[in-house]
């Protein structure tokens, strides 16, 4: 394990990944310090939440539609506190969905559901946002894997 460069993609040429990593680490430290310690499932949810928040806050993605949509979704999740007897879930549509055009491949619809905010995007933008989203997702997975390896050694 290379101690000098423990973070993935943390070279000076990709400040985006470094911000993403930093954000996630800070969140993870907060979660670890929480007292009393939450239940395992609650902590897992918090970590997952932190993972997606870090993705959305990385400098490259903060201008993206998917990151704004993701942050919106995260805020909705946060407002759902477990233990409330009656949780009224209101689905707020902030964009008008664009129905798939006939010349789009059929799979575009599935993609629209997978990429945050995808339903409101033009096909061209959808592809671009998807590429960006995939890059951030990959970086996040690499980061978490690296951390796990570091913690396990």
């Amino acid at each position, binding site marked *: 394990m290379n101690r000098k460069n423990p973070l993935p993609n943390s070279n000076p040429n990709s400040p985006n990944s470094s911000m993403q990593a930093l954000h996630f*680490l800070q969140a993870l*430290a907060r979660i670890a310090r929480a007292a009393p310690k939450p239940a395992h499932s609650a902590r897992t949810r918090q970590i997952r939440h932190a993972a997606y928040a870090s993705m959305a806050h990385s400098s490259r993605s903060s201008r993206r539609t998917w990151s704004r949509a993701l942050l919106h979704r995260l805020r909705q999740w946060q407002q759902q506190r477990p233990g409330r007897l009656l949780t009224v879930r209101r689905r707020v549509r902030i964009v008008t969905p664009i129905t798939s055009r006939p010349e789009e491949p059929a799979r575009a619809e599935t*993609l629209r559901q997978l990429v945050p905010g995808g339903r409101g995007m033009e096909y061209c933008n959808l592809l671009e946002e998807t*590429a960006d989203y995939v890059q951030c*997702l990959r970086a996040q*997975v690499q980061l978490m894997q690296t951390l796990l390896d570091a913690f396990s050694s």
Partner: protein
Amino acid sequence: MSSRRRRITDGEINELITKLQSLLPEPRRRNTNRASASKLLKETCSYIKSLHREVEDLSDRLSDIIETMDGDSPQVEIIRSLLN
């Protein structure tokens, strides 16, 4: 959202599809015709789903590790050193 729709050229679509192709785990050299574009989208969907599952799984395992952490454990030191 504005109702005007920019006329998107096939060239732009192909370019983006090529870019997506390069991001997938096993890049393949293919003509970006309609059929393979659809296949590429399908692979992209599977890939995104698998990445979502990985995030879930890794969150779970990180949660396990953190459970065993206290103020003096080495993992906390790692986090601190990475944050400085």
